[in-house]
């Protein structure tokens, strides 16, 4: 690979479109992911608007039919998990930051990296196309449970579901190709002096997330091939009356689906693990325990999947096993979260926007984590399963992870990415508005679920039981309006951050990790001179030192 990395001037197409530069690929992932976030957010509006007032029109559609509501819910979940969370948290941040933090000039396999993005782009096109086929897009939930997903609709072939499967499979291939880079680069391309335990925690988290993804997604890819057979050739792998088994899909799906939660959580923990030490001016508390806990959680994560299936006819003996593993897995994650909190303890805390989002993510994620313990226990889960309590719970885990994590990362690394700062004042408005209205949206869902509201109902008003909790839907919908409105300051800051003079310093936050040695933004090849590593990543506020931080790099004479 080495001899190919020095194309002098790749030209416009080579620079901006078929780029092999990890920074440009990261930005491509970022912009594609943010585009999908708009689409997923609009679908969220559709869901909430319809639930608050099922008989009034929704903007851009009119009154939704139950079938169309199913499509909207399915595509909202699919888009947010696979086309927003993964490309932004892993594709964008991982690509942009891993080589910079390692002091490398690019990823290990730049061409593979380019291929990864364009496979992802292709999957995006397929997913978009699925909205416009006969019968509409997939409507069987983001989990695509058979037998619903393999049923024939009015059309002989359920094209929406077929394209959904193809798009998801392509997205997986893209992330697998990316994963090869995220694992190989940290192992093989660390700057001189950087041992594995001198890597920033973000790199560890990206590596762990990629490894978990690559070890869990395979069975679902195989299962998707079998489901394509069911849909296209009329086989019956998942159809009981043809000799198949619908539960098989649930196992294949959740064997991937549960580790996937950690694939999203770990990069976000990596992001805040970089931000919190810098703005507390303290070393990250428990660097090695965090790494070992992450590895332990990654392994445990492979034996918890059936807690999604407690009411699917799982053997009660198996249910107790999966309950126990599920509750055990909260221990390593508690260690990680407590380490983050302990990093704050007695620090000189600066509440920049990035820091606000990082601390906010911890606060909100704790609600998500603790509500999860109830679902993890089989006996309690029977009551709340498939209710809005579950919807509330997983939004309390995923929204802080994906959006708080992303926003924290963007406000923090924007100077490195684009050479300008995001507006801090707009950022603070953005943070507080988002936080207040996020809770206003999802606390009602937890309450709805405890009141017994099932989660996949298109029109709750037809059930007398649910009439006296309908007001909670209305509150949640107003909450979503508020949340969407408070993304406007971010959009404005985002646009302002893309134009104007590039005036950011190399190291505006006085951080110790290697990416802050490179120019803002870094050029092709990243560093003026290859850095040499002389310190750990979090050497802040050492009493015997004059400066309040020791950078990881050996001082270089200015060029």
């Amino acid at each position, binding site marked *: 690979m080495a001899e190919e990395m*020095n194309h002098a*001037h790749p030209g416009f197409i080579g620079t901006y479109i078929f780029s092999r530069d990890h920074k440009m690929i990261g930005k491509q992932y970022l912009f594609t992911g943010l585009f999908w976030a708009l689409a997923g957010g609009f679908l969220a509006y559709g869901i909430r608007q319809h639930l608050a007032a099922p008989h009034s029109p929704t903007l851009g559609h009119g009154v939704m039919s139950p079938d169309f509501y199913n499509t909207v819910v399915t595509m909202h979940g699919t888009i947010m998990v696979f086309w927003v969370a993964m490309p932004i948290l892993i594709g964008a941040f991982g690509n942009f930051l891993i080589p910079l933090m390692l002091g490398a000039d690019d990823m290990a396999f730049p061409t593979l990296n380019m291929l990864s993005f364009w496979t992802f782009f292709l999957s995006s096109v397929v997913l978009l196309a699925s909205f416009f086929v006969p019968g509409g897009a997939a409507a069987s939930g983001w989990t695509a449970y058979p037998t619903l997903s393999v049923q024939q609709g009015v059309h002989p072939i359920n094209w929406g579901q077929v394209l959904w499967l193809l798009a998801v499979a392509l997205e997986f291939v893209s992330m697998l190709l990316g994963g090869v880079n995220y694992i190989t680069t940290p192992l093989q391309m660390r*700057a001189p002096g950087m041992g594995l335990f001198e890597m920033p925690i973000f790199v560890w988290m990206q590596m762990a997330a990629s490894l978990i993804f690559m070890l869990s997604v395979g*069975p679902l890819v*195989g299962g998707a091939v079998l489901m394509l057979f069911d849909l296209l050739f009329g086989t019956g792998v998942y159809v009981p009356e043809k000799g198949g088994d619908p539960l*098989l899909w649930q196992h*294949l799906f959740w064997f991937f689906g549960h580790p996937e939660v950690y694939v999203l959580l770990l990069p976000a923990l990596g992001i805040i693990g970089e931000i919190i030490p810098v703005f507390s001016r303290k070393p990250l508390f428990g660097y090695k325990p965090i790494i070992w806990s992450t590895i332990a959680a990654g392994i445990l994560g492979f034996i918890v999947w059936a807690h999604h299936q407690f009411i699917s006819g799982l053997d009660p003996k198996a249910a107790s096993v999966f309950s126990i593993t599920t509750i055990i897995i909260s221990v390593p994650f508690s260690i990680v979260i407590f380490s983050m909190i302990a990093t704050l303890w007695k620090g000189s805390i600066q509440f920049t926007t990035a820091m606000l989002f990082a601390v906010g993510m911890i606060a909100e994620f704790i609600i998500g984590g603790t509500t999860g313990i109830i679902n993890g226990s089989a006996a309690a889960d029977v009551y709340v399963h498939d209710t809005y309590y579950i919807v509330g719970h997983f939004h309390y885990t995923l929204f802080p992870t994906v959006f708080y994590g992303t926003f924290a990362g963007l406000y923090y690394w924007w100077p490195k990415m684009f050479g300008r700062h995001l507006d801090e004042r707009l950022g603070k408005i953005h943070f507080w508005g988002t936080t207040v209205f996020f809770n206003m949206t999802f606390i009602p869902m937890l309450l709805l679920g405890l009141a017994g509201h099932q989660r996949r109902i298109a029109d709750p008003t037809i059930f007398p039981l649910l009439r006296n909790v309908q007001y909670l839907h209305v509150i949640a919908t107003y909450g979503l309006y508020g949340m969407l409105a408070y993304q406007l300051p971010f959009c404005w800051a985002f646009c302002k951050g893309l134009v104007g003079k590039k005036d950011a310093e190399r190291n505006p936050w006085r951080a110790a990790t290697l990416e802050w040695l490179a120019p803002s933004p*870094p050029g*092709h090849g990243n560093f003026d001179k290859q850095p040499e590593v002389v310190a750990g990543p979090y050497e802040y506020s050492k009493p015997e030192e004059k400066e309040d931080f020791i950078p990881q790099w050996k001082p270089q004479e200015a060029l």
Partner: protein
Amino acid sequence: MSAHPVPIAHPMHELKYESISPSMGRVGMWAFLASEIVTFGGVVCSYLLLRLCHPEWIQHSSKTLLPIGAINTVVLLTSSLTMVLAHHSAELKNVAATKKWLACTLLLGLLFLCFKGYEYTHEIENGYLPNTAVFWAFYFAMTGLHGLHVLAGLVTMAYLLIAIKEDYRLTAVAPVGLYWHFVDLVWIFLFPLLYVTTQGA
């Protein structure tokens, strides 16, 4: 990058990195193969679980062509041997021998696909389609997925045959060899599961 004219002070070949001992290509290939192992592992386990619940599948599985499957097993195993020889020649930097053994591997792989094509034709002509029974769905999905991997390996080898020079792409033979052995190994699982366990019904 005309947009950000930052000079590259050090050409790539002057950069020194901390790394673990296997080559970059091998680490990458192992990471990739890890995901491949669970892909085939998932399908094989699904097949096994269903197969154990459905002894009656034997009436379908006994219709597979055992002799051809056996010949194909020999063909694929031999291709692994020629691949090892190609890898060995590449380590010795012997371009001519590397190309010779790669070509042998490529031909054996092609032979495998020809036999597989004959089998598919035979089965389809006799009315054993994917939707005939769940067994056939698994049969076509598993051997088809494996066949696609064989094809991908052949394309890569064809590229290497053209591209390899004294100082170019010789190191790529090792990771491609790893991949090819993996494809071979998958067949070692598929052959008994789909062909052998079914006889004597």
